[in-house]
């Protein structure tokens, strides 16, 4: 099955990228955008989803500073 893993900076952790993008947007005419957070998207094709959590904790995300969310796509 196809799996998407969304990895984001944890709440409360400084996200310099998100902040910098957020501050640049008004200058381009995009007003009213707040709470920009920039993370990563990892696509996986897996046969056994039971170890996904472990996989994310050990490799895909740095759980000290990042949260991850697993989205299993329907076939």
């Amino acid at each position, binding site marked *: 099955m196809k799996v998407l893993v969304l990895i984001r900076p944890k709440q409360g952790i400084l996200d310099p*990228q998100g902040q*910098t*993008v957020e501050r640049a947007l008004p200058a381009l005419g995009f007003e009213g955008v707040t709470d920009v957070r920039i993370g990563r998207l990892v696509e996986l094709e897996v046969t056994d989803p039971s170890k996904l959590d472990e996989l994310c904790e050990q490799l895909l995300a740095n759980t000290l500073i990042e949260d991850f969310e697993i989205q299993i796509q329907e076939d």
Partner: protein
Amino acid sequence: MRIGVVRFPGSCDEVDALDACAMVADAELLWHGRTDLDGVDAVVVPGGFSYGDYLRPGAIARFSPVMKAVADFAAEGGPVLGICNGFQVLCEAGLLPGALLTNSGLRFLCKQVDIIVERPGTPWTADCEAGERLSIPVKHMSGRWHADEATVAELEAEGRIVFRYAPGDNPNGSTSDVAGVCSAAGNVVGLMPHPEHAVDALTGSADGLKLFSSILNGGDRVGTAG
């Protein structure tokens, strides 16, 4: 001859570029927030980490007010040189073809490399010979120039590959060993290596000075881009 060097928040090599320009002409810094170029005769978009390289290198800086003025200047044939992050900004802005991806080694790399001048005669290579080898340092994380096959073929055919890494010296895995390219009219040149860090033998090499001195010979506006 007066050369303007753009300064973005996060630029790091703008002062070195300014000093290199000042060795051959008058030079001044152009703050990113200004909407005109103060009447300069040539523009250098320098290296560094504009806006922290956040999102993508050059992605935010290309929208600075000064970049609109640089685009207009380039369209009129004004000579523009993008170095490293400046090259990335010019590619993001569509003033130069291709894009710069993360190095094939996935690490930042700082080393002296040899590059070969493929296209003399641009405003920034007027003092170089075809095939001339220059020793110039690179230092970047995202320097792997990439374009699709059709674009590369077109650039080759039009002589728009300005610099290539010498055989064995490609530090980042760029397509066809490309180190620098130019616009269709030849007045906008971008390269990953840092000629401003090669203007004095005391600090390693003076080969890069030729790019700046070229502007005195070939720095006149070369006409509206075709």
